[in-house]
């Protein structure tokens, strides 16, 4: 454990940790379909995300972006197709779902911090209960993470007393506390006041630079341009386009993508 902390705390080391290995698919969607009742929300999705890759998902409201990434850690079940995480099939009945989830960090639009716990306690809960870490050790690690997201001085604060941006940074630290191999973000900045968006994007950018595998649903096109390796456009449950940011913004193929970009970029 001590080792792991050192890894996390010095970002560079982490980067090494992930990129030393040869490129390797960590998330794979194979012909995935999902319905809510009669609503077909994911249509034959095929998608691979490689280790260390940062993928931005965008698309109109209701197009299935949230559903897509929520399927990865099985917050939502799928009805057909297969999702593989690190080579393991999610549909496998012998799969230890909890262990898998500890490898996947999830950050929500609405932060979802536990309101009755301090920032520090929010972060230490899972390491203590799931990994069985001693309090002292968990707290040491949590403080390191808080420092990393620039929140070291707010360890004792309750969520209600933090601004949106601060809450989201704590939520990121909480997800990192389980030392995940993959981080998923569902519109992490869209509930934030504009001045606070940057502080969160900065934390995410650093994480990406350190080599974390990330799937990010967001409309922050600046972030997509600068940080993403690939941008995915979804519409009506379909994966319409996946391109490098340059191609995506300069020469989108599908007319739907063009229309969407024109709406979202002009203001």
């Amino acid at each position: 454990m001590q080792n792991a902390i050192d890894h996390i705390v010095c970002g560079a080391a982490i980067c090494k940790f992930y990129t030393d290995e040869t490129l390797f698919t960590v998330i794979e969607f194979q012909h995935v379909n999902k319905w809510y009742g009669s609503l077909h929300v994911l249509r034959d999705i095929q998608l691979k995300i490689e280790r260390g890759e940062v993928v931005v998902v965008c698309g109109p409201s209701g197009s299935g972006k949230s559903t897509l990434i929520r399927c990865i850690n099985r917050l939502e079940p799928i009805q057909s197709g297969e999702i593989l995480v690190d080579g393991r099939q999610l549909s496998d009945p012998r799969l230890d779902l909890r262990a898998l989830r500890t490898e996947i960090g999830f950050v929500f639009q609405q932060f979802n911090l536990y309101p009755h716990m301090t920032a520090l306690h929010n972060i230490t809960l899972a390491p203590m209960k799931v990994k069985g870490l001693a309090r002292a050790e968990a707290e040491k690690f949590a403080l390191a993470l808080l420092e990393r997201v620039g929140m070291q001085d707010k360890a004792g604060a309750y969520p209600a007393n933090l601004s949106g941006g601060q809450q989201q940074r704590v939520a990121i630290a909480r997800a990192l506390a389980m030392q995940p191999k993959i981080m998923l973000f569902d519109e992490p900045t869209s509930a934030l006041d504009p001045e606070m968006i940057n502080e969160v994007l900065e934390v995410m950018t650093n994480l990406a630079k350190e080599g974390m595998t990330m799937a990010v649903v967001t409309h922050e096109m600046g972030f997509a341009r600068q940080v993403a390796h690939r941008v995915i456009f979804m519409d009506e449950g379909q994966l319409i386009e996946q391109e490098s940011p340059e191609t995506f913004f300069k020469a989108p193929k599908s007319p739907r993508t063009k229309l969407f970009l024109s709406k979202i970029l002009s203001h």
Partner: protein
Amino acid sequence: MRYQFDWSVLWSGQTGQWLLQGISTTLEISVLAWLLAGVLGTLSGALRTAGPRPFSALSAFYVEFFRNVPLLVWMFFWYFGIPLLLPRLAQDWLFAHGAEFWAGMFALGVYHGARFSEVIRSGIQSIPKTQLEAALSTGLTVTQAYRFVIIPIALRLLIPPITNESLNLLKNSSVALTIGVAELTFQTRQIETYTAKAFEALTAGTLIYLVLCLGLSAFMAVLEKRCAIPGLIARVTPAEH
């Protein structure tokens, strides 16, 4: 005929003692029933939101059946109906040890357990689903997520409606007079029959209930403030009695 007030009936003779006995019986039956209701309500409320199918169905049946029949009917049912189903020995023991008290206690506890259950269920359901998802996605089990996240939040949110329900239980203990439990309302009536001073007797009883209820709710308000989670507003269910 003009009514002659005579407040002295409240302290002359045995009346003072009767009132005290009434208060103590009311409190005893309420506290015991409250504990029973608490256990039943928490169990069935939690099972209804998260339990395995047969248990949640059973809880739903319990809640819907007991909540939807008047307490008075339950009083008669527990007092006159249930003992007949017990073995003779158990009946004898029960009858020698204040059956009306226990029947009243069970009627009150089981009835309010069903209502507690509803309060607890709506409390748990008022917590956004994403809160549970957040806990699950850090690798906590469902049980752990409930134990450390959902229930602690729910409990705080639940203080006001639980207080409300507890007061209802206290007030409803008065229905036990119909099966001869010598609680406060019973004693109030007793005073009235011995003295023919309805106004004075009822005033005394009413004031005592008011003091008990308002006192309890003031106490719970303090508790609520002490346990409040910063930034969360309480009030889960509307008033109901």
